[in-house]
């Protein structure tokens, strides 16, 4: 069923939409963000103005964006999906051409005072496009090779650009995010089996390529893999972050050292403690109880999104919701796995908690779409 088939009267209008917003989701997001403020206050050594206050301001802006998007009818999003994708794609090209070098990689584009990371925007735009594509596509054609190849191209084109920046982490997230939408849309499992098989082959090839002149990754990326495999080999060099983060995390114990009592984070052994490693601060200060509480909040957000997706009879809306919650899932699981030493170190923020505007805005944008899908679901 497409929105054109709705009886528009069945969809809430005007401010009545407020009543139809997925309020539990809003509450959960706010709760997670509040944990973030608390931790930013703590890592700043009890100062609000260092990180917590700007983050609160961003959260307020993000909330307004989310609620505003929630009011925008779902069919509008489908209408602009192709345009959004193309716009993001062009921005990615622009970044590759004129982007600012930051943190050893080229990821940002400056538009006046605003810094935009098109690769992050692309995560949402790709989900939009794929959802629109599968909504448009005849259900019977979903697993036909040509109709599979088309979305694969949609995924790989921006991925290639992101990889050129080079940003391996975002590339993987784009592929995985896109893959999840395809998976949810019902593409045959055989394809996924084949892709996973190919990926294993690729990893093998990458490892073999090391030291040859067709080396597929940069040296620092190889080193990250090394330190991931054996952080102890270089405890003061590249493995330092992981070891320190594990120490901080592990030393939290059951109930943690107490709010503002985390010695590791306080004493600066942890790098980027307000961004990528903020989870360790939480785990150190509030222990297993605190860390698993956050995990439970994340799971609840995923649960509400899934429920909303499955209860929505509109295919586009469902796919959007699943795609965005999957992106959210990837964010936090990659971050947590990294700080625990389960994945190689890569700069990825803890969603809704880490200090930083980009990921917060992207996520609030995404949740805005989820809310819009929820508000405008066919009844």
């Amino acid at each position, binding site marked *: 069923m497409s929105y054109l088939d709705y009886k528009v009267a069945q969809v809430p209008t005007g401010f009545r939409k407020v009543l139809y917003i997925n309020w539990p989701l809003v509450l959960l997001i706010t709760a997670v963000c509040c944990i973030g403020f608390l931790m930013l206050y703590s890592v700043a050594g009890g100062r609000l103005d260092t990180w917590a206050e700007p983050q609160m301001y961003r959260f307020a802006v993000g909330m307004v964006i989310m609620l505003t998007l929630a009011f925008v009818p779902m069919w509008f999003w489908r209408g602009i999906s192709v345009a959004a994708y193309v716009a993001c794609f062009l921005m990615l090209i622009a970044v590759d051409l004129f982007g600012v070098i930051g943190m050893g990689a080229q990821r940002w584009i400056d538009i006046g005072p605003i810094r935009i990371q098109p690769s992050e925007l692309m995560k949402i735009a790709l989900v939009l496009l794929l959802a629109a594509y599968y909504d448009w596509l005849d*259900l019977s054609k979903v697993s036909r090779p040509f109709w599979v190849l088309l979305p694969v191209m949609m995924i790989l084109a921006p991925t290639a650009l992101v990889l050129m920046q080079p940003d391996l982490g975002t590339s993987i997230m784009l592929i995985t995010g896109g893959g999840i939408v395809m998976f949810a849309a019902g593409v045959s499992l055989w394809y996924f089996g084949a892709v996973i098989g190919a990926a294993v082959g690729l990893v093998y090839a990458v490892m073999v390529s090391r030291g040859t002149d067709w080396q597929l990754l940069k040296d620092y990326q190889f080193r990250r893999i090394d330190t991931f495999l054996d952080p102890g080999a270089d405890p003061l060099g590249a493995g330092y972050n992981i070891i320190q983060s594990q120490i901080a995390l592990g030393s939290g114990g059951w109930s943690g050292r107490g709010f503002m009592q985390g010695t590791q984070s306080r004493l600066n052994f942890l790098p980027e403690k307000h961004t990528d490693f903020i989870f360790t601060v939480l785990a150190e200060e509030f222990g297993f109880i605190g860390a698993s509480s956050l995990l439970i909040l994340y799971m609840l957000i995923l649960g509400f999104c899934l429920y909303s*997706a499955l209860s929505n009879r509109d295919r586009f809306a469902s796919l959007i919701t699943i795609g965005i919650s999957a992106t959210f899932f990837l964010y936090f699981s990659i971050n947590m796995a990294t700080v625990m030493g389960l994945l190689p170190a890569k700069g990825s923020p803890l969603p809704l908690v880490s200090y930083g505007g980009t990921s917060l805005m992207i996520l609030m944008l995404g949740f805005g779409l989820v809310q819009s899908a929820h508000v405008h679901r066919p009844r």
Partner: protein
Amino acid sequence: MKKSQREIMDSSRQITRRGLMLAGVQVATVTTLALKMRSMQLDHAEEYRMLADGNSIKMRLLPPARGLILDRNGLVIANNEQNYRVTLTREEAGGDVEPVLRRLAQLIPMSDARTDELRDEFSKRSAVTPIVLADRLSWEQFSAIAVNAPSLPGVMPESALSRAYVRGGDFAHVVGYVGPVSDYDLSRIEDPDPVLRLPDFQLGKIGVEGRMEEVLRGKAGARRVEVNSTGREMRQLSRQEGEQGATVQLTVDAALQNYAAQRMGEESAAAVVMDCATGELVSICSSPSFDPNKFVRGISSKDYRALMDHDHRPLADKTVQGVYPPGSTFKMVTLLAGLEAGVINGGSRYYCPGYTELGSRRFHCWRRGGHGSVDAITSLEQSCDVYYYELAQRVGIDRMAAMARKLGLGQRHDLPMSAVSEGIAPDRAWKKARYDQAWQIGDSLNASIGQGYVLASPLQLAVMTARIATGRAVSPSLIRSVDGVRQDIAEAPALDISDSSLRIARMGMEAVMNSSRGTARSSRIIREEWHMAGKTGTSQVRNITAAERARGVVSNDQLPWNRRDHALFVCYAPYEAPRYAVSVVVEHGGGGSTVAAPIARDILLFALNGGLPPLDAVPSDQRAAMQARHEAMSLYTPEAPRPGRSRA
């Protein structure tokens, strides 16, 4: 495109199925994360807690720069110079130090023995401890290493301050030296400053360096740094610079000290020059000396052995630590005791037949033929022993000892130098306590001419001379100012000795130098304004046996060096308004008049002149020899006082 109801149902079912599968994957992932968290935070929390506690804040001390030691005119005696060295940290060298050592050996000379020593050191110490590879590098070597640093992982060129004694051996005994802190040093200090525990820290061992350690050391600065669990410094939290130790200005004149050292040459001797009015020690010099810089760097056992085995004992400070029978220089004490006791007056005479008989024993005068009838002044002028034998029998030892102490003998003068001796001014009680024996009259006779039990250091002799010269109880001082603050010197109280007695003693000393029969006439100063008074002394270090006497007195020259007499001389000038008192002891030098007196006179002249003794101040027949001596000396060329520092 319109979708059928059936299509919608299919789609919904499909999405539900796949959504639940996805949810399954997500739950599995989150479960994995939770399990890992559980394992780290619950099962291994203790381990991580221990590692975390290894990450902590450490204080790293910054050793303070040691205070300078200056002479009375602001010339530097001890300062701190840059010591260029390189350290190596094994961990930063990648665990294996061999290749680094090999590459380093191409840049700086490193012996195989040294390399073995280092290897041993590296195997024993922690991998994160920097170990000093080479010390006191030249700037060229240091920069060569700095330039090659990229190929020498873990090697750290550093520069640290190290003590330097720019005046060489001149002040070795006065100023002393610094050296590494030993466990013994630490055990002696209550609540030692933590900076002493720094591996390369040096502390004053002897002399002013040792005695004024607290003042000179300064206050350590500190850096608060974070170290991680492997001991690596992560960042500096704060840095507080230390305070340099206070500048200590001595009363000693470096030029005079240098001259005194050169004048004594290779003799085993000591010279003390004291300012009569203030008691300031303008020179206090023990010879031969040694290079204190060797001790700072860690003296080699070979060098140390050489110093220890030297029969002239260069390490001993003969000025304050060495005590000698004062010989005839003690006669002023006996004389003053007699005058003050009213036993004699200036005109009293004794007859000297060349000896005094006491029971069966004969006490000889140095002049076998005797001096005939002798009065107080002549007794000093010609140093008649018999006069004092007679006097001693009448005065008694206790009054002599009291006079000796009044004049500064037999007591420890408080100077910031090591092992300042008390000397001995013997009396009945002393002998009773020391030997549990009754005092014999013969002991008094020996004491009266500064033999027997009497012992005095050159410092004490200088004090004695200054007190006689001024009639005031001047006390020696060595420190002129600390950190620019002038040490106040209290006006010396008058001695409890009548002027008339003192005048007689002074007149006798004047006669020693200037009368035609004075024992030290050849060492007189002929310049009227530096009119000089003095007293010779020759103290026996052996007993002359009856058999020796029967064979005739053996001349000193025929004896082995260490059995010859000590030569002593005390003097002051100008006679009318005393400025400087000088004492000189030449160990086993022979006669006081021939060996010690010329040295003392020349040093006195240098002090009075503020430079090399003018030739026209000495008798004309000595000028050529003096000229030759000056030319043979290699004196420090006077350097400008340090700019920017008040000369206080």
